[in-house]
């Protein structure tokens, strides 16, 4: 399977997916760590994280997938939400909680 298809599968089969540097437990970049914290603060307990440092093809591929040059990248229900700035802004305005509410309450 090519890497674009692999990414598409990952983001469409899982409600919350974060492409990040490191893991949720051990983030290796401050921006990635911040998004993990925000998701937890929104009540998201099950998120799929993909460590781009562990796979060079995914690290390049995800930048092309969303036409977005930086990591982290957050996907909710298959849609690209944004990187660290946008996620932070949406959390501060309450939009992110709204977006995640159906997923959090469905558990």
């Amino acid at each position, binding site marked *: 399977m090519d890497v674009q298809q692999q990414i598409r599968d990952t983001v469409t089969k899982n409600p919350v997916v974060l492409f990040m540097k490191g893991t949720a437990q051990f983030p290796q970049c401050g921006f990635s760590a911040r998004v993990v914290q925000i998701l937890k603060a929104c009540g998201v307990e099950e998120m799929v994280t993909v460590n781009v440092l562990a796979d060079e093809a995914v690290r390049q591929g995800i930048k092309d997938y969303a036409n977005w*040059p930086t990591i982290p990248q957050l996907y909710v229900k298959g849609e690209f*939400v944004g990187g660290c700035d946008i996620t932070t802004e949406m959390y501060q305005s309450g939009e992110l909680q709204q977006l995640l509410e159906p997923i959090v309450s469905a558990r």
Partner: protein
Amino acid sequence: MLDPKQIETWIAHGMNCDHLQVEGDGQHFQAIIVSVEFEGLSRVRRQQRVNAVLKDHFDSGILHALSMQTLTPVEWQAQRG
């Protein structure tokens, strides 16, 4: 070491900005970009617009972390109060 002024020049050459300010320590940068081009665009689309302008520099690896606030002139006025 990348100079924030260099990033300002790259952005200013690629798009029409009403106000532009980039600060940073040579590794991580923060930009405030005010442009009429952002009107009617979502946050993602706005940032993609700027990313497209800077694509070559992201691809080359010289630029890897740029936080940005992307505002329309009206939003910028409102934010300044």
